[in-house]
């Protein structure tokens, strides 16, 4: 019986190594500093994770489809700035503001998708749009932060509560559920995994892999702009420097969670786990009194481990 339990444990560790990393970090840091595992701090970690979870879900869909989207964080920053400017300078209701912001994400997503459909490597295309979106963020904000004072907007997308739960969690959960349905329940989801898993086989079977990849990047753009709305509500502003230097976190999170960088493999829990692990490390570094140097190194080591485990297991 004990042998079977051990086998089960090892198989679980092999399958979800970073859930165990998550537990180990919690236990280790919690023993050194009990404050780390207090309900208040756990909530802080989850709030810090929320936007990265949404961005990581955006990245996961094209990543499983065999393409990378580096632009999501910048598109989110730009979207937050658009929302801030519209709320501050126009009389548009927040519903219309949300629609306009999502349209901006749709435009960026389609642009990425069209170029990738024309067989230009996604790495280069989205590196370019990452820069363009950040540049637009500066331009739209006239090089300064734009505060948001619309409390309805802030409550609806961040600090308001539904059944005692912060709205930012509700929206994050909604994005994860939508991602789950798309990836695991729809024909499109199967085609994404086929296109990323073995593109030629998928193409020979009759899957239009180019259109699938276009749609995956389109989805990524829209979800990134939705992350921008959550971001604007969370910090009550649009800022040209928001999330600067954190562009790769949305890419790293799904990899840490187990999505294959080569495509085809992974599930919707991967970006969630990865984003929480990243936030736990960032929070632990602060609680333990270390600086950002240690945080970056710890995250870097984690990525190398995640990729190595992924390559060894073919998963």
């Amino acid at each position, binding site marked *: 019986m004990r042998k079977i339990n051990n086998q089960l444990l090892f198989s679980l560790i092999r399958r979800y190594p970073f859930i165990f990393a998550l537990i180990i970090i919690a236990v280790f840091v919690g023993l050194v500093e009990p404050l780390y595992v207090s309900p208040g701090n756990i909530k802080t970690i989850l709030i810090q994770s929320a936007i990265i979870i949404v961005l990581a879900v955006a990245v996961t869909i094209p990543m499983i489809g065999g393409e990378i989207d580096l632009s999501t964080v910048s598109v989110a920053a730009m979207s937050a700035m658009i929302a801030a400017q519209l709320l501050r300078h126009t009389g548009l209701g927040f519903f219309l503001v949300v629609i306009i912001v999502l349209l901006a994400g749709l435009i960026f997503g389609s642009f990425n998708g069209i170029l990738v459909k024309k067989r230009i490597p996604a790495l280069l295309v989205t590196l370019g749009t990452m820069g363009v979106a950040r540049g637009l963020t500066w331009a739209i904000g006239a090089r300064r932060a734009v505060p948001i004072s619309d409390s309805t907007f802030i409550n609806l997308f961040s600090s308001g509560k539904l059944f005692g739960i912060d709205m930012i969690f509700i929206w994050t959960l909604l994005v994860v559920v939508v991602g789950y349905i798309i990836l695991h329940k*729809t024909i499109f989801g199967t085609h994404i*995994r086929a296109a990323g*898993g073995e593109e030629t086989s998928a193409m020979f*079977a*009759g899957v239009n892999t180019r259109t699938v990849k276009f749609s995956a990047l389109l989805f990524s753009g829209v979800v990134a702009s939705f992350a921008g709305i959550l971001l604007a509500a969370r910090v009550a502003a649009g800022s040209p420097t928001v999330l600067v230097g954190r562009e790769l976190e949305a890419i790293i999170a799904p990899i840490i969670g187990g999505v294959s960088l080569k495509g*085809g493999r992974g599930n919707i829990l991967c970006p969630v786990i990865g984003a929480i692990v990243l936030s736990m490390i960032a929070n632990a570094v602060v609680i333990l009194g270390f600086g950002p140097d240690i945080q970056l190194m710890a995250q870097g080591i984690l990525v190398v481990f995640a990729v190595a485990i992924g390559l060894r297991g*073919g998963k």
Partner: protein
Amino acid sequence: MKELLRVEGITKSFGKIVALSNVSTSIYNNEIVGLVGDNGAGKSTLIKIISGVYGPDKGKIYYKGKLVQLKSVQDAMRLGIETIYQDHSVVPSLTVSQNIYLAREIYRKIPLFKGISIKFNDTKKMNEESKLLLDAIGINISPTSIVEDLSGGERQSVAFSRTRIGRIELLLLDEPTASLSIGETERVINYIIESKKEISSVFVTHNPYLMFPVCDRFVVLGKGRKIADVKKENITQQELIKLITTGKANNTQQQ
């Protein structure tokens, strides 16, 4: 015998490389045609043109006497043309039933707004149907198994099951036994012979010893051109091998 498919004057180039030059041939009902030739002869290119992967630069394709345009794999499948490839017949990271029904999923349509709906996989139905298809060819594997956990032979069985979903009339086999064990190869060969009662097949392989007993006729390609089109009763195995290696045919073999 009635003609099922005819290709006429097919030419295909990739940049400066001429893969096929003015190739014409026919496939008749209930026959197995061996498409043979050395490396670079143009066999796989011709298979990919008939299966809708590539469009020809020049030439025409007739199916049951009608001129057809095969602009996609789906176009070919709609006519009843199914293909099994050596390396690209399955997606290893998907399940058996996802592979069998890939691009032809059984789905439930749920409407969102006017005219917009989401197609949800009917996984239960696809698993049940896949089990029946696998049972029909005598393979005992679970429809929910991940294909990368299967042996080469089992993977090819999944690919064969795929071809049975549609209304198959012509089966194209591009080196289907290249990575299989002897036992698995025998099973594939038996399947091809059995299928002849209902459908036609075009069999591409490097191994003339394997294909000779199976095929009714041989179309020999060399450097993108048709060298010979010969019935089995008019050629010996040794002559066929010589034809493939030398690329030269005599008058009898040119029929």
